[in-house]
């Protein structure tokens, strides 16, 4: 996948870090110190369908399908996460118990066009 930089309009991953101390959550979240809430943004014009972040063969397959099915009817595809990982948290719950858990699919590592 591609990280957004400069004025690229194409589908890419935007980094965004939420510092728990800045939002006043550091008293109940023991670890980690923040959350990488990255997200996908950007355009997925026709010729981008299926890349980046997915296998090239899939891209070719998608393009062939679009050609075969009357290209001008096709619309842009969407810029979505193609790779994600869990967010591990150690926190106090409302009864002051200490809970450790891994919340699946919370951190976006790569983006791509459907």
């Amino acid at each position, binding site marked *: 996948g591609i990280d957004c930089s400069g004025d690229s309009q194409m589908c890419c991953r935007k980094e*965004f870090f*939420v510092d728990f101390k800045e*939002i006043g*959550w550091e*008293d*109940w979240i023991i670890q980690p110190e923040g*959350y990488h*809430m990255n*997200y*996908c*943004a950007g355009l997925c014009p026709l010729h981008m369908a299926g890349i980046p972040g997915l296998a090239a063969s899939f891209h070719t397959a998608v393009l062939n399908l679009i050609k075969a099915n009357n290209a001008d009817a096709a619309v842009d595809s969407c*810029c979505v996460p193609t790779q994600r990982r869990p*967010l591990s*948290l150690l*926190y*106090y*719950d*409302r*009864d*002051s*118990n*200490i*809970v*450790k*858990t*891994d*919340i*699946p699919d*919370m951190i976006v590592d790569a983006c791509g066009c459907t």
Partner: protein
Amino acid sequence: APKGAWCPACGLATLAPTTQRDVLIALAKQSILSKLRLPDRPNITQPTSRGALLTALRRMHAQRVDVALSPGTPQESSMPHLHPGMSVQEYEILSFAESGSSTSRSIHLHFHFTRELAGSIEILQATLYLFWEVPSSGIHPVTIRLLQPDPTGLNVSMASETQLEVQRTGWATLDVGRAVQSLFSQGSQRLTVELQVAEDWGPPLLAVHSDSHWPFVAAQARARTPHRVQRR
């Protein structure tokens, strides 16, 4: 997004940077709280002391090493075991005791488990850790009763009773997995542990004055997988 509705991905591009930041932080908060099944961020009135937390984590680690090294003894608890690598969300819960009533021969400890998780997790293992402080040599019999409120919450019923013979100062563990699981299945979250000694030794042997030897329960749990019906 439907015509005219606000599309989160493209809508952000038109927002002023500060507004965009506020929107993203609000989304991050909402996402974390909903995944932890919390209606709002918890207000921590008495955070656990660092000493107690570090001691508990060390004890749990040591216990795991002991169990891993013990020659082939299968786990007594009949709880389903953790299968590492499963895609189901897993939890480790540390619940420190809240001291209850005590007499010269008995003491009550209360453990409040996680309200928001109670209905959505199944307990895999739960172990009670107690630190004995033995006043004199010899064998000291101690009775440990696990009490839980009945469904009305008005009375308590005894879930189990165990006789221990304490011979020296140090940590002892007791498997409370079945009691905690039955607590959760009844929708209650409070487990009371009653410790009783034969003679008047004063509060039974517990090092309750020492912060880093405070009794605790360590539980491992797993999110309940929704019951799937497969049609052929």
